[in-house]
């Protein structure tokens, strides 16, 4: 029933869908299965994929652990809230390579914690990933808390529950979906991060359980870039396809 207007809107919208969908399709169509199979069995690639999922998971857990309490406060309002909101959202607009530079100035040599080594280390990498992904966890959790009506919390309190009990039995369970979504979003964002990691921790040494020892590898998006620079488009395409599979799997978790 939308008539001409609807058709025009649909046509314009479709252009964007093509711009987003067509490259994905062509990318998938133009991969060489044998090259992907080769990369998929390469132990070096395994290490990269392991690190590319593991380090972002640490960042997501940190984002949730500290982001959920912050989100709860933001959803309920407090003095100075606009300032805190700005601080939380700022990493969303900081250019990714600049984020890396900021982390180095803040926590690197001469920074806040002299005992902490961030340049080229796993803690540095996780810090950089947390910096860029925490806003996603905070904002999703905050939206979830805001969608729980004040009245339900009032109802819990007036019938005897303390703030903690009201949170644990009412607000928390009702916002659980949103918190999980926030965690997965933060995870996905960290998996996709390239710039900040390329600056702070181009390659890192970490304990790799399958090998039972410490190994050196790069964050997956860095590895893809590196492969592109060294081996050309086709080889990096194969690695990119594997990484895209991992990202898509995490993405399906969100939905």
């Amino acid at each position, binding site marked *: 029933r939308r008539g001409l207007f609807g058709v025009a809107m649909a046509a314009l919208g479709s252009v964007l869908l093509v711009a987003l969908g067509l490259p994905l399709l062509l990318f998938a169509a133009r991969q060489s299965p044998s090259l992907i199979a080769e990369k998929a069995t390469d132990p070096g690639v395994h290490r990269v994929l392991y690190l590319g999922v593991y380090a972002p998971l640490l960042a997501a857990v940190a984002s949730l652990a500290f982001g959920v309490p912050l989100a709860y406060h933001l959803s309920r309002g407090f003095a100075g809230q606009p300032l805190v909101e700005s601080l939380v959202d700022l990493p969303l607009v900081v250019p990714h390579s600049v984020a890396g530079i900021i982390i180095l100035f803040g926590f690197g040599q001469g920074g806040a914690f002299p005992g902490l080594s961030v340049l080229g280390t796993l803690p540095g990498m996780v810090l950089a990933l947390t910096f860029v992904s925490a806003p996603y966890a905070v904002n999703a959790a905050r939206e979830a808390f805001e969608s729980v*009506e004040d*009245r*339900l919390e*009032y*109802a*819990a*309190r*007036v*019938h*005897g*529950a*303390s*703030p903690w*009990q009201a949170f644990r*039995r*009412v607000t928390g*369970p*009702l916002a659980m979906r949103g918190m999980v979504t926030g965690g997965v979003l933060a995870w996905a964002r960290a998996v996709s991060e390239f710039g900040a990691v390329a600056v702070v921790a181009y390659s890192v040494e970490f304990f790799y359980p399958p090998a039972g020892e410490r190994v050196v590898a790069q964050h997956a998006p860095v590895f893809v870039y590196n492969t592109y620079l060294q081996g050309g488009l086709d080889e990096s395409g194969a690695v990119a396809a594997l990484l895209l599979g991992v990202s898509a799997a995490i993405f399906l978790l969100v939905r």
Partner: protein
Amino acid sequence: MTLAVDIEATFTADGADAFHVAADFEVDPGETVVILGPSGSGKTLLLETVAGFHDHEGTVEHDGLVLSDRPPEGRDFAFVFQDYALFPHMTVTENVEFGQRYREADANPEALLADLGVADLTDRYPPTLSGGEAQRVALARALAVEPTVLLLDEPLSSLDVPTRQSLRADLQDVLAGVTSIYVTHDRTTARALADRIVVMNDGQVVQTGTPEDVFERPASPLVARFTGSNVVPISALSDRASLLDGDRDATHLTVRPEAVELGAHDPDLTGTVERVTREDATSRVTVAVEGVPEPITVFSVDPPAPGTTVSLGFPPERVATCRA
């Protein structure tokens, strides 16, 4: 065991002027005090403030104990919300039992549900309930904690008419033995449930009294209009002496519509029938009278046709006076 409320609170919403609410009243043990007022009069904010949901000045005292500094869970009240506010992720039984985890109370949740006629809902989830069912469950949840004072915020206003009448009847029984504050804009509900009525307007208390006081002797034209009384400027009356004894400063006379005599032999006013509306028991007849800004309402089982000229008599013993 009296609850004494004497509070002031200021509320600011985004982009709106600050709204100030102040009230001072008492609720005796077992009594139901109804707070009656139009939409936006601040009656819900007042009730929520009594419950401890908002910061306020002044005191809330129960049985000599000052509760004002306590959080909601420290006041031993219970609350029935207009839109039920049941926990959607808990079954009906879990909702009703909720408060008993935290407060000592012997009330049997199943018996409460049975008394309220919803014993068969125990394992259902709130989103699957009708409005009437949900509000009965919410009432059971509130009663389950055996509150010292039960607070009710327009519990009937989201319900359709037959459901509302049926729950109102049950509320009459439930509230008979419970100290309670009940907020509503519906004068029929107020009259059905109240031992005392606090009339609010624009954040302020404008009259406090028994239903008889408020309905028969409204303190101002505003209260009279809100309780459904007729308001007549004294200047519109030809023979004033017979109706006004005493109050020389009075500007208005008020009289209940059911007290007005239609077709009186010795009329106080004469007017034209404007409209006849059939209601449940009788017909509501509105009569336009020269010099009276609002039409006069009377009830009649055998109403005259619109356009008819009718005479209206005010029995002196049912007439009250007030100042604007």
